[in-house]
């Protein structure tokens, strides 16, 4: 629990790192209606694709400095020479990022979809989807930012975007499934299944990657 507290302390003090992605999400969602003709009913058509992509992009921005700061100031070395489990620390950090960035964004996506679709049930169905998908995206982009550590986040985004595409497809399908009233729950389970694999695999792979970077 102490690790959780310390990670929270660090992220809380870096306002730019947690508020930035949330604001970017907000701005994309605000920019979207401006690009469409001013008619409420048409807005709904492209809304969800913009929503998922906004989540994707804000998660990408959130992981931009998830490891690079520790790499630059020498904390990573101090961490890996300790006997504590490095994988564990990585997963704790991702959880904190998710709680501080992913969860607020999920709540915002509920509000935005309620505002756009005026359909309460549909908007509620967006919450679990965005909560799970933001966690998956965070893990994937954490992987990308570990691979491209100190080489810029652009490279990280380029190499992890293909990993995130299947998730986008599932997200798109699940909204349609909900609207048609079929197997929405199965999609949630599918996403949860992906998540459970990713939560375990990503910290392990990231720890190997970071150790390779420090060599």
């Amino acid at each position, binding site marked *: 629990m102490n690790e959780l507290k310390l990670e929270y302390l*660090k992220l809380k*003090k870096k306002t730019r790192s947690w508020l930035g992605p949330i604001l970017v999400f907000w701005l994309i969602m605000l920019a979207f209606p401006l690009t469409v003709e001013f008619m409420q009913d048409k807005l709904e058509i492209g809304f969800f694709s913009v929503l998922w992509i906004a989540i994707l992009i804000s998660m990408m921005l959130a992981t931009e400095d998830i490891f690079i700061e520790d790499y630059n*100031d020498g*904390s990573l*070395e101090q961490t890996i020479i*300790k*006997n504590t489990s490095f994988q564990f620390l990585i997963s704790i950090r991702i959880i904190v990022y998710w709680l501080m960035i992913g969860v607020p964004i999920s709540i915002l996506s509920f509000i935005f979809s309620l505002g756009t679709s005026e359909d309460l049930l549909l908007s509620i169905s967006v919450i679990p989807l965005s909560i799970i998908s933001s966690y998956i995206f965070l893990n994937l982009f954490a992987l990308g930012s570990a691979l491209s550590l100190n080489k810029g986040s652009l490279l990280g985004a380029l190499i992890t975007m293909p990993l995130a595409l299947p998730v986008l497809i599932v997200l798109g399908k699940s909204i349609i499934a909900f609207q048609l009233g079929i197997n929405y729950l199965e999609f949630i389970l599918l996403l949860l299944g992906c998540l459970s694999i990713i939560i375990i695999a990503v910290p392990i792979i990231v720890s190997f990657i970071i150790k390779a970077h420090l060599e």
Partner: protein
Amino acid sequence: MDNITSVIAENISYKVNDNKLFHNLSFSLNTGESLHIKGPNGSGKSTLLRIILGITNPTKGSISINSTKDKCYLGHKNALKNYLSLDDNILLMEFDNHPCLKKYIEILDLKRYLDVNVANLSYGQQKKLGLLRLFLNSSDLIILDEPFVGLDKETQIILTDFLTDQLKENKTLIYTSHIECDIDSKTLLLK
């Protein structure tokens, strides 16, 4: 005084892109001994320290360390968060309940700055804060990379005295330094 071997290095070689940094390096250290690694810039001193720490793998050879405790390491980077105050940094190092914390804060003259952000401290003061990691260490093996750089004469003396005391407590010390210091140690010269 019991002298047990604490570090053994056997035939260590290291290459980057097929450029040999050092070749077939061997040494051994007992507890209570110290090793001063000397050599010109780029001779691989820091790399050797990182190999001893286990961060970098040697291309050939092996190193064995006879201790299960965490190693104490201070490198060129202080591992401080410059957007946090001194207090918070001490919290991150998990020294907030250490019995000797107060004493060393006094000695290093950091008390006035406890709620100042690290970014607003001078280089020397940041270095002093980093030294807390060393002063409050609970390990058997201390590894220092240029510990004296950026410190004033007074702090250098405190540091030297501290290290001498640690050696008396049967700890092992490995360090590099271009600044002359008065620690009784073996020497390893890298070319």
